[in-house]
């Protein structure tokens, strides 16, 4: 669903073996050419992208859990089917993204192991719990909405495989976003209880969603290199502002109140929001959010309990290959 601006990029170019190659590479970037897997690229570019794409992939996979939490309890069969389809899409996004990361020379297994070991991050948003059905609507509306804000520019990212994965992901993501918003519309036109449920969900998710865009520009460690390499096209704060401006009218249409009493609209029409609680953000990233431990425990459990199945598949494939070789030799 989402990649967060968490990278500490390698801006150190001392390791570059060839200054001329680096200059040529930058010229290609500047000319808006796509970099492809077999092309030369600076080691730091490779490393930054591997980290960002894999974090993005991990986010898709961990992101299945908060929504998956409601599949067995969805209130109608139509909603159940839609949610199941959505979570299935997210798994597919994870697979595209691992494949894109693998074009950079990493293996999916090592990337997944890094996540399970707590060495690789995933989006902070998935460390929040889904307490009511309205959370499912809110996640679609806001979390997927924020993801789209961030991913549309990535469709023009300089690395071809990532950009192409993003084009496919964005198509499905915007469908999810509309589905989520439709759940919110239904709730807000429903009973008082349903409206209250929607407002409560917005209250709980609003600030965590704004945190999805990453630290403020002044504190963002990696923007320079990522911008120079056209991995990143807009700053965290620019995207966050764009998101807020797009979302306020949607909340108004729903008749919901954004839990930020200090919010004002300036002369240019931008909605100015209050200070984000960056302490909470840092704590969630450090593993201390409400669900960090549960999310990792669930992924580790699936991985651990699935080991014998993966071993069986590998053992069978090896046996079959041996039999086929033996048959061919006859």
């Amino acid at each position, binding site marked *: 669903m989402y990649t967060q601006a968490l990278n500490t990029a390698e801006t150190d170019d001392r390791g570059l073996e060839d200054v001329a190659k680096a200059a040529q590479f930058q010229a290609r970037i500047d000319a808006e050419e796509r970099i492809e897997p077999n092309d030369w690229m600076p080691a730091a570019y490779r490393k930054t992208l591997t980290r960002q794409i894999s974090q993005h992939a991990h986010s898709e*996979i961990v992101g299945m859990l908060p929504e998956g939490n409601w599949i067995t309890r969805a209130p*109608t069969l139509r909603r159940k089917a839609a949610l199941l389809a959505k979570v299935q899409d997210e798994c597919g996004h994870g697979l595209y993204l691992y494949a894109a990361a693998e074009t950079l020379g990493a293996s999916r297994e090592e990337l997944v192991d890094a996540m399970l070991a707590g060495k690789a991050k995933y989006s902070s948003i998935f460390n929040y719990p889904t307490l009511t059905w309205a959370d499912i609507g809110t996640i679609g509306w806001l979390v997927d909405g924020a993801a789209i804000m961030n991913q549309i520019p990535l469709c023009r990212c300089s690395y071809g495989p990532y950009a192409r994965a993003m084009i496919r992901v964005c198509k499905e993501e915007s469908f999810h976003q509309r589905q989520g918003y439709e759940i919110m519309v239904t709730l807000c036109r429903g009973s008082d*209880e349903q409206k209250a449920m929607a407002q409560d969900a917005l209250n709980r998710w609003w600030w965590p969603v704004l945190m999805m865009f990453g630290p403020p520009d002044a504190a963002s460690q990696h923007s320079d290199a990522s911008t120079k390499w056209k991995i990143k096209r807009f700053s965290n704060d620019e995207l966050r502002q764009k998101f807020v401006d797009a979302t306020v009218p949607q909340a108004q249409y729903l008749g919901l109140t954004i839990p930020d009493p200090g919010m004002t609209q300036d002369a240019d029409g931008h909605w100015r929001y209050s200070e984000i609680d960056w302490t909470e953000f840092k704590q969630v990233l450090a593993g201390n959010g409400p669900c960090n431990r549960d999310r990792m425990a669930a992924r580790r459990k699936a991985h651990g309990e699935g080991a014998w199945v993966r071993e069986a598949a590998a053992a069978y494939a090896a046996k079959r290959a041996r039999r086929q070789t033996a048959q061919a030799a006859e």
Partner: protein
Amino acid sequence: MATANIQVSETPLVLYALRRADDALILGHRLSEWCGHAPMLEEDMALSNIALDLIGQARELYTFAARTEGKDNDEDKLAYLRDVRQYRNVLLVEQPNGDFAQTMVRQLFYSAFADLYWRAMVNSGDTTLAAIAARSEKESAYHLRHASEWIIRLGDGTDESHARAQNAIEHLWAFTGEMFAVDDGERALIHAGIAIDPGTLRGRWLTTLSEIIGEATLQLPQNDWMQQGGRSGRHSEHLGHLLSELQSMQRTFPGLAW
């Protein structure tokens, strides 16, 4: 009293559709419990995919049942406002997921049946059931292929996977007989050319199964004692828990649109 269970006038045709719908919903629900917890991402997708197909089949069958009944029930009332004793699925599909082998054996037993069943039902004299069958048989063929390939991998994989698959077969075997059972109401539908006699599928089901189980180096149990009851609402203790989860929203917030 919107929270109370609905009453369904179970004419033979309504009951017939409900039984198939309940099979599909309960099995789809079970598979959906795997979401995010499967042994690998590809399998997470496959299990969700099959769950989605089955829930789709259930929706069509409930809608058909509701229309046939002609009262004000609909797919959601039928799914969310009937209690354990009103559910009509076979016991097999409500069995817990267990480990991956148990899920796959349950899927193999059901899909090997559903594949034959829907292919035969394409010729139903009821045009809606025939249309549902035409769609479902394509899905079931895919489900059967998926389950078969896994049973072969597990059976002919490692010692551990072999043992787990064999255990699952032993555990679930007694629940397979119910899929082939017919009561008087169904017999009338069979005579009318609306339903097919599932009993006639058992031989082919066994052949398909024997081939797969054989290739997997596994064995079918010798025990022929079969558990029954699901079709008339006498379920295992598992279904109540499943329904309390599935129905919790509609029970807590009755009569609303979502």
